[in-house]
């Protein structure tokens, strides 16, 4: 039966060619490896806030979003989209009712693409925290190609790079910094290898404590530790503020006799970073830009 074989093969090839004419068939580089996407997505459900933030920056409107979006800037998005779970857990029923043609998970929903791919092609776009800045750029370019918005992506990355540049210039030669996160009454410190380490690396801000180990959730420290480190700059993330509970604010936690002795506190060089942008949406183009401009304006205010 060779003839039948040949026809079948020919049909196959023809079909492929037909599909390719309006297909994209691109390999998307994800956190979980390469994933092939062959039709340009129109209806996308997004669980990762950083991805959502970057998509909006290049003009892609999501059809499905998590229940809580944390960033006030995203409030308008939720009104126009369906709720399909929260940032930790996709709601598979809501998802399948929406029937999107692409699902993006990542960060706190990392790994959930195994479940969601039964509904639609899924990408895990987690950023691993080693070089958030570079990954933020690469993700934006990838989304640009995926959604056919290459130009918008390129422009967004250019804007991002120029604010990175300005922030970097403002930081130069102004001393060492220590990144701390307050969580209620307690404090953790983050070194240059941590999830927030990009601030030290990308901006060239020397860390006040060398050789802090790479611990994603930071190192629980005492206030004596902060005083001993004696940073010129204290970069503070208020975790409670990041998730919307603003009762125990970072200033109250840090306002004590030991922290008061640091150079940073004495000279008013304490930067309260935009918490949700820094903590929830790390690596989102616009969110990270807001973090960069907060850093820039604080450093610029102290010549």
């Amino acid at each position: 039966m060779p003839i039948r074989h040949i026809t079948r093969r020919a049909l196959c090839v023809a079909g492929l060619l037909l599909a390719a004419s309006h297909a994209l068939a691109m390999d998307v580089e994800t956190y979980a490896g390469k994933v092939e996407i062959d039709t340009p997505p129109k209806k996308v459900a997004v669980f990762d806030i950083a991805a959502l933030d970057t998509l909006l920056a290049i003009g892609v409107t999501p059809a499905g979003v998590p229940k809580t979006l944390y960033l006030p800037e995203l409030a308008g998005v939720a009104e126009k989209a369906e709720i399909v779970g929260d940032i930790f857990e996709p709601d598979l029923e809501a998802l399948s009712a929406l029937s999107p043609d692409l699902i993006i998970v990542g960060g706190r929903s990392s790994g959930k693409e195994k479940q969601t791919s039964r509904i639609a092609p899924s990408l895990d776009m987690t950023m691993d925290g080693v070089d958030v800045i570079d990954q933020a750029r690469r993700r934006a370019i990838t989304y640009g190609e995926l959604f056919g918005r290459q130009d918008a992506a390129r422009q967004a990355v250019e804007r991002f790079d120029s604010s990175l540049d300005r922030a970097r210039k403002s930081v130069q030669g102004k001393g060492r910094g220590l990144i701390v996160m307050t969580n209620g009454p307690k404090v953790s410190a983050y070194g240059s290898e941590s999830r927030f380490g990009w601030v030290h690396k990308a901006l060239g801000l020397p860390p006040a404590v060398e050789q802090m180990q790479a611990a994603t959730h930071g190192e629980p420290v005492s206030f004596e530790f902060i005083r001993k480190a004696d940073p010129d700059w204290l970069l503070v993330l208020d975790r409670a503020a990041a998730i919307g509970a603003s009762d125990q604010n970072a200033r109250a936690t840090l306002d004590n006799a030991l922290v008061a002795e640091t150079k940073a506190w004495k000279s008013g060089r304490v930067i309260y970073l935009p918490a949700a942008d820094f903590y929830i949406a790390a690596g989102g183009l616009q969110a990270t830009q807001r973090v960069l401009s907060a850093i820039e304006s604080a450093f610029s205010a102290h010549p």
Partner: protein
Amino acid sequence: MMKGAGLCLALLVIASLAIGVEDLSLSGAGDRLPLLDLLSISRMPRTLAAVLTGAGLAVAGQIMQTLTRNRFVEPSTAGTAQSAALGILIVTLFLPSAGIGLKALVASGCALAGTALFLSTAHRLPPEQPHLVPLFGLVYGGVVGAAVTYVAWQNDLLQYLDIWMNGEFSGVLRGRYELLFFCVLLIAAALLAADRLTIMALGEGQATSLGIDYRRMTQIGLVLVSVMSALSVVVVGLVPFVGLVVPNLVSRIFGDNLRGTLPLVALCGAILVLSADIVGRLIRFPYEIPVGTVLGVVGPFVFLWLILQERRNA
């Protein structure tokens, strides 16, 4: 024995005062903090907080074990601490700006209600099956804990809740722990009631015929246990196993006459928590390991050992 324990605690206190990230210096030369400031701002408060928490929790555990007439119950395994955490959560949700005093008050109230419910049910369990009470306590504590987790999850406070559920002293400074001094009063009250508590351990019938107002004493015990647990949960978080392990070890060696053993229970509780805190400060110096984690690692082994011993003696 009291002397030995006292000496041990004194040595630990000195060690605790000496250990910390900042260097001790007499003069405060250079940019160093003068010794007295360092001690009064940071080291003394932390040491005292550990001592008071440990003593309070051990005494609370002892009272709880007396009230339930069961050796394997303590505030953090029988819903008291979880109820206190629920109280804090409720205040956080409805009165976010509330001070630590109000938090302590509501936490104590919730702990009281939660513990009362536990006790009233535990008293109905058949006394010939002694392991039913701690089992029920674990399930009950788990249910209350699950409610706490659910409320926290609904309000995005899960990781915030972890602070209370894992006790540690790294945030303790002058001005941030003084609530714990109430524990001194409560421990003193427990010492005054020690004789009565000893008699209560004989059971309601016996105690009543010996002239004890059983119901009144139960209420007093309930308040002592709840307030002590709530205070420690509010200030430092949940510290497990102290209330379980310490009273058991003390009674194994020195018997059950609380007038003699209760001060020892308090001392040993203080010793246990303070040494766990010192260990937590040293293992990854200059970073910290929460005291709850240290005890959570050590506690289960001691607990298992106690249960196995029990079997051997039976």
